[in-house]
C-alpha cells in the first residue's frame, strides 16, 4: 500500500475543510472495505488521534465485490481516497499544525494475505 504525502490543508477558524487521503495498492491486491461482509475480516479504518481540528466525518469510497473461493468480498482495489471532513474550532490557534492519524488495513491477493498493518498518517494544516 502506498499513501500519497498529504498536501497542507488550509482551513479558517469556525469552518470545515475536506482532506482526501490518496491510497494506491499494487496490482492484484485488495484491502477489505470499511464494511466487510464477513465478521472475521479486518476492515480498513482511518482514525485521527491528535491535532487541532475536530473530525466531523470520515467517508470511504464505494467498495467493489471480489470473489475469493465461495465468498464475495467487499474490497477496495487500485487507487482510492478516504475523505475526512475536519472542523477548525473557533477558538483554535491560528498557524501551522499537524493532524496525526493512523490507518489500519489488511491486504490480500487471490492466493495469500499479508498480516494486518497500521501506518501513521500526518496531514499538515494551516489554520487562519
Amino acid at each position, binding site marked *: 500500500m502506498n499513501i500519497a504525502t498529504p498536501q497542507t490543508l488550509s482551513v479558517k477558524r469556525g469552518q470545515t475543510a475536506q482532506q482526501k487521503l490518496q491510497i494506491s495498492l*499494487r*496490482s*492484484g*491486491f485488495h484491502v477489505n472495505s470499511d464494511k466487510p461482509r464477513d465478521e*472475521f*475480516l*479486518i476492515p480498513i479504518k482511518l482514525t485521527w488521534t491528535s491535532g487541532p481540528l475536530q473530525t466531523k466525518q470520515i467517508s470511504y469510497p464505494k467498495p467493489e465485490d471480489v470473489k*475469493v*473461493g465461495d*465468498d464475495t*468480498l467487499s474490497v477496495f482495489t487500485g487507487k482510492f481516497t478516504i475523505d475526512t471532513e475536519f472542523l477548525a474550532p473557533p477558538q483554535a490557534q491560528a498557524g501551522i499544525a499537524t493532524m496525526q492519524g493512523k490507518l489500519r488495513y*489488511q491486504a*490480500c*491477493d*487471490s*492466493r*495469500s*494475505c*499479508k*498480516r*494486518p498493518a497500521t501506518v501513521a498518517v500526518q496531514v499538515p494544516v494551516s489554520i487562519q
Partner: protein
Amino acid sequence: MNLLKTGALLLSATLLLLYSCSDTDPVHVKGVAKQNGSLKTAPEFTLKDANGSAVKLSDYRGKVVLLNFWATWCGPCKIEIPWFMEFEQQYKNQGFEVLGIAMDDDGWAAVKPYIAEHKMNYRVVLGDDAVANLYGGIDSLPTTFVINREGKVVDTHVGLIGKDDYISEIKSLLNDTNKDAVLSNSGSPAAALLSLGAIR
C-alpha cells in the same frame, strides 16, 4: 571463456525468471532448507491449544504433518480449511496430522469462535512472532510446511495451492515412510526382502 559465457547466460536466465514471477504467484520451495544435502529439521516449538494444553511439534515425530500458519481474517486460508479437515479424517489412521497455527493478534477471542463455526476437526494452536520467526518470518498467509515422519521440512507453500498438490504430497510421504518403516523394522536389507516376501 565459453564457460564464462554459459555462466552469464544461466545467471541472466535465472534473474529473468525471478523477475517475471508476479506478486500473486504462490511460492513453493521443495525441501525448503536443504542444507549440505539433507533436509532441515522443522524448528521445535511449544504453543497452547484452545484447551490451554501445551503442544510441542516433537509430539508429532513419527507422523507426516501439515503445519499450517493461518488466520481467521485470511480468505485463502478459509478455502484450504475444508481440505485439511478432509485430509485429517482420511489419513489420520495412516500417521498423518494437520496442525494449524493461528496468527490472529486478537488471540483465542477471534480463533475459538472461528473453529466452532467451521467445525475444524484438527488441532489448532495460537502462534506468535517468535514461532513465526523460527519459520522464516511468515510474511504471508497461508504458509504451510509439509513435514515428514522424521520431523524434516520436505516442502513449503506460501499462498494457496491446489488441493490435489497436497494430496499427492501427503500420499507420497505416507507411502515413502511406510516403505521406510518396513526397512527399518526389519533391521537389514536381507531381512527387509524376507519381510516383503512374507507380505506377499
